[in-house]
């Protein structure tokens, strides 16, 4: 009940005309950015970040929230129409969305993706209303040793879940932690790895690393795609809506996939991409006609779309309640929170409940606005897809430099931006995933500080990290998350042997 009264209070904040305006602007801009190939919600929030610098914390968070789920709504537009997902979370929407377009059913695909996104987003926000206070309350029990174990778990899970070579995932994580150690050490005042450069003494701002990797790195990668030419976009649509039959086929997949997406999103490291793919496979297995999947089955669009929007809400839980971002986008949002002087974590719910509940309430409003924007106006919005990338990418470059400058008003950061942009590109080339590094850069400093605080409390006894039940459980979770891929491989092998014999 307490949550409900807090939520009501949140609505009084979110329904202020200015805040409704910000969530609309954020949502529309997010949709547009999310639509563009290669630019996902993380890039969207990173590039649009400077817009929020002069706002108050509530308006800034509401705007960024709008950009985030706007990008999730928009991501599938390009998947459906030109088979080019805006980001990883929208990949699953290409499986059946594009075949639907080829069959002349683009309208139904666009409509169901917006409807599923809306329901997924709203259901997930409802779960969030009831779950966030208990989680925050539980997190208050965490001391520095528990926090250290939590950081280790979150990072290990993220690195371990990266696709491809897992060692590279951990290399990426270590690289990020190394970057976080640069600068004056907060506890002893010792200068570390500053190479004698004055500007490095205050450390490397993680927002610079984020903008560099997500915006500059993406532009560098895009040079290749531009040469490949561009696909034609369907511009004329009939009524963007679905039939009763299509709705009946989609409603259960949507209702099943939303909670699934929420909980996957709340796990560290597992974001919208995994949620969408899992929901898709789930529905394919449960379906009475699995042969239609991949040929334009409407539930094949509905399920992943509901799941990835729900996941984007779920990812906010660890970020807001524990101060641990579970995905690239929530990492950027956490960076923005820190810039506003707010420390995400359990105390945030006690001290800044207006801001938090204003944000949660605005998620309901934002989802409604985005459904309205994305269904009747979808035909107009997708025209953005016909703006050539050769114009868009230079603009993204321009925006990243403004963003970097607005963070510190220092041109020195430009050089870091270029350096990390090149690094992001090279990492992509050698298949080192960027996400573990980004998360590590953000939590690295806090992680070391919790380690040292616990170390000091225990007077140098490392046993403190394994003493309380919470830290023990977290330690076991870390081990499991590192070993999980091996366990899974062993189980698959065992099954294969059984069927063979």
């Amino acid at each position: 009940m307490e949550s409900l009264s807090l939520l009501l209070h949140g609505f009084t904040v979110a329904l202020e005309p200015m805040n409704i305006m910000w969530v609309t602007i954020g949502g529309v801009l997010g949709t547009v950015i999310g639509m563009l190939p290669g630019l996902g919600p993380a890039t969207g929030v990173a590039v649009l970040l400077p817009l929020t610098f002069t706002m108050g914390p509530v308006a800034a968070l509401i705007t960024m929230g709008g950009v985030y789920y706007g990008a999730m709504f928009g991501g599938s537009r390009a998947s459906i129409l030109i088979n080019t997902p805006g980001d990883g979370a929208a990949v699953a929407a290409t499986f059946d969305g594009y075949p639907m377009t080829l069959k002349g059913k683009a309208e139904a695909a666009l409509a169901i993706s917006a409807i599923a996104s809306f329901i997924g987003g709203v259901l997930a926000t409802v779960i969030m209303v009831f779950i966030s206070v208990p989680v925050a309350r539980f997190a208050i029990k965490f001391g520095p040793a528990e926090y250290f174990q939590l950081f280790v778990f979150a990072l290990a899970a993220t690195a371990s879940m990266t696709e491809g070579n897992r060692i590279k995932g951990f290399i990426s994580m270590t690289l990020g932690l190394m970057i976080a150690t640069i600068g004056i050490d907060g506890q002893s005042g010792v200068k570390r790895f500053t190479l004698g450069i004055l500007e490095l003494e205050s450390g490397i701002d993680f927002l610079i690393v984020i903008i560099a990797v997500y915006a500059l790195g993406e532009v560098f990668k895009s040079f290749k795609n531009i040469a490949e030419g561009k696909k034609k976009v369907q511009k004329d649509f009939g009524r963007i809506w679905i039939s009763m039959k299509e709705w009946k086929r989609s409603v259960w997949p949507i209702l099943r996939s939303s909670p699934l997406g929420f909980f996957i999103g709340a796990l560290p490291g597992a974001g919208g991409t995994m949620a969408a793919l899992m929901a898709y496979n789930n529905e394919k297995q449960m379906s009475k006609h699995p042969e239609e999947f991949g040929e334009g089955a409407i539930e094949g669009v509905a399920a992943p779309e509901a799941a990835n929007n729900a996941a984007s809400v779920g990812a906010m839980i660890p970020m807001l309640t524990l101060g641990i971002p579970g995905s690239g986008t929530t990492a950027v949002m956490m960076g923005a929170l820190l810039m506003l002087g707010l420390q995400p974590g359990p105390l945030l719910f006690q001290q800044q409940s207006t801001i938090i509940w204003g944000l949660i309430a605005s998620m309901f409003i934002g989802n409604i606005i985005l459904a309205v924007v994305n269904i009747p106006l979808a035909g107009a919005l997708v025209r953005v897809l016909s703006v050539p990338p050769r114009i868009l990418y230079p603009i993204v470059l321009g925006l990243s430099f403004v963003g970097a400058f607005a963070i510190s008003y220092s041109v020195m950061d430009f050089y870091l931006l270029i350096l990390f942009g090149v690094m992001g590109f090279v990492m992509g080339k050698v298949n080192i995933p960027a996400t573990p590094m980004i998360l590590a850069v953000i939590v690295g400093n806090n992680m070391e500080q919790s380690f040292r605080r616990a170390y000091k409390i225990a007077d140098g006894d490392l046993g403190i990290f394994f003493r309380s039940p919470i830290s023990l459980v977290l330690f076991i979770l870390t081990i499991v998350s590192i070993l999980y891929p091996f366990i899974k491989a062993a189980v698959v092998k065992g099954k294969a042997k059984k069927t063979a014999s």
Partner: protein
Amino acid sequence: MSISLLTGLVTFILGMSYTLAAVHLPAASVGRANEPKIFPLALGALMIILSISLIGQELVKKGQKEKSTGDNAVFKFDTNLKNISLTVLNALVYSFLFAKAGYVISTFLFTGLELVLFSGIKKWKSCAVIALSFSLVIYILFNKLLGVYLPATPFIWI
């Protein structure tokens, strides 16, 4: 040499140099003298272990003579390298000019050159128009409406 093997070698060197630098960090004058070193030393050690495992993994793969696909592809940069180097160079010049020439002029040059790089020199007129409108719109939006200070351009009203 395969991409992963090269990655292993580079990260090994990185891990070694980071660890060496961590060993030579000055002692803290308050509290335990070695405290600022513990975490970096652990990171350095972790990086060395990871890079050695990556190299080991690659050598084992090589021993099994697996066909080189995807991850094992031979390290080679494509033709985009030229465009990327030009972009980096352009960005460095931009960083240098930013405070001196002011936001509008430096950004006009930077985005203009990028647009030309992406679209080809034939379209320089439309590139110039887009670059000028972009730099003016952003300047007015940030400086006048959002209150984010951007370096003013000498001799011009903006």
